[in-house]
């Protein structure tokens, strides 16, 4: 999940009786699965929640370029270089779609980006982990994009039309990346040397738990979920999505011939799901607070890029104005 903890500012759900006429009409539309569009009336808290969620999602795409960009100059074959560059290019494109969707709500892209740089807006915790070997490029594609897809497939039915439509486009590309990531790992496991196999297992060991954290806090510690679910911004709970991800990922892990760094992971024939061990929630909250391994570098890098590029953007604006004046004269 690329937006894993979104404040709604709502402590308790209103009943239909407690709502104003406008609010009730809105909720009835939501309940009837009619998409909300930019010009429709919406409660301010719905608008603000979506701005937070979509911008968090967009920021994640952009910050997410950095851990992969870290290996772009070191990709080991021409084919892998091409794949990785195409993937990162897609991520920049996803960021653009999402900022556009967010702007339909009246928010401003530069303002929201500045909030992220100031530490006031979040992005997915996963991108605060370092990429330490080439195998991480496979593991990020397989696990991180895999987790994102489980979340985003559901978001294709989210109640806000522009967000839902962005998800449809993004999901197609993400699925492609995920298969490519898995293929990187499969190649190393099936045709690689022992050193490469060790590299793959090590990448999985480091990224497994952070990937599970992408779905956000467990349902019992997810105070904002009830309102997001009532508004149908969220369609399924964090724990449901996490469980789905685990259930579909473990067979893929077995096909690789790798192990899961969770001694408590076990198939449960009664429930038809995998049981799994306890997530280190302390770590999750520390990373979200800014104390993860790469938080400081990631934000500093993005901030630097925007600051260093100011003169370029100013030149583009000045030149456009000159051209405009020339044609107007």
């Amino acid at each position, binding site marked *: 999940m690329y937006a894993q903890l979104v404040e709604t500012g709502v402590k308790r759900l209103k009943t239909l009786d407690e709502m104003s006429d406008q609010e009730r009409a809105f909720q009835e539309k939501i309940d009837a699965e009619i998409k909300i569009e930019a010009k429709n009336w919406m409660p301010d808290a719905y608008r603000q929640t979506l701005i937070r969620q979509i911008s968090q999602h967009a920021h994640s795409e952009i910050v997410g370029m950095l851990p992969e960009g870290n290996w772009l100059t070191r990709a080991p074959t021409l084919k892998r270089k091409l794949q990785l*560059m195409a993937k990162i290019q897609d991520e920049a494109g996803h960021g653009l779609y999402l900022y556009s969707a967010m702007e339909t709500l009246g928010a401003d892209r530069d303002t929201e980006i500045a909030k992220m740089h100031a530490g006031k807006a979040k992005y997915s915790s996963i991108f605060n982990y370092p990429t330490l070997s*080439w195998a991480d490029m496979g593991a990020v594609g397989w696990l991180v994009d895999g987790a994102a897809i489980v979340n985003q497939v559901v978001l294709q039915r989210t109640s806000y039309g522009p967000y839902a439509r962005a998800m449809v486009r993004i999901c197609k590309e993400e699925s492609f990346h995920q298969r490519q990531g898995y293929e990187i790992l499969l190649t190393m496991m099936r045709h*690689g040397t022992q050193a*490469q196999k060790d590299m793959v297992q090590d990448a999985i060991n480091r990224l497994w738990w952070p990937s599970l954290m992408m779905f956000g806090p467990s349902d019992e510690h997810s105070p904002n979920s009830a309102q997001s679910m009532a508004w149908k911004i969220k369609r399924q709970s964090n724990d449901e999505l996490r469980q789905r991800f685990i259930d579909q990922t473990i067979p893929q892990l077995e096909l690789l011939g790798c192990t899961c760094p969770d001694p408590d992971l076990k198939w449960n024939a009664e429930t038809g799901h995998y049981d799994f061990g306890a997530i280190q929630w302390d770590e999750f909250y520390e990373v979200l607070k800014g104390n993860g391994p790469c938080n400081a570098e990631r934000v500093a890098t993005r901030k*630097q*890029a925007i600051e260093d590029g100011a003169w370029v*953007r100013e*030149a*583009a604006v*000045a030149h456009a104005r000159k051209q405009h004046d020339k044609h107007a004269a």
Partner: protein
Amino acid sequence: MSIEDDLTRYLLHLGDTALIQGQRLSQWVGHAPALEEELALANVGLDLFGQARNWLDYAAERLDDGRDADALAFLRTERELRNLLLVEQPNGDYAVTMLKQFFYDAWHFQVLQGLSGSRDERIAGIAAKGLKEVTYHLRRSSEWVERLGDGTDESHARMLAALPKVWRFTVELVNADAGEQRLAAAGLIGDPATLAAAWHAKVAEVFTRATLPVPEPASAFYLNGREGLHSEHLGLLLAEMQYLPRAYPDAVW
């Protein structure tokens, strides 16, 4: 040297140049001045890596010594690489990056246009496909040279400061070596004199629009990328690019 050898060397020259320019562009990823630029830089880099692979594939077939395109890219030393000196220069600020890109694109466009009429059908095919991409690259970099040259006082000053850092390397773009003269005479590549004239004309046209002074043609100096005589920047670039295949020689990626 036979015309066959000339051609293989030339294919390496084209492939290596696209590869190293792509490598420099990939260093921008995550650091560009705007999101749209992230997308565009990655897009251009991607095109160039694709073209590098096409040329190196063909070079590998002609060499027929057991090496494939990856071995040519990742296991040759800086004395063996034949890229233009221009593209191995550091990215610097956006003014340096865009000037490098523009000089390269204006050259690349002419080269591919010449090659698309090559007697060698394989070369003509690769060039025709690449030409579509490079037409876009050239339009984009021309526009940026204009925007930065004729933008703000600061952007204009930065372009003036960038120019001497890269201009001297353009001497290679317009001076064909003896091998290229032979290839041109044999109808395998375009006419070098036409290329040089068109390149100078393009630079003059875009620089005038960009309100930048058109420099005198650069003069020759003692390095030569085609001969594997590079600046000190290439070795470091290769150390990074080639690290994995060299550290794990038996690996399959």
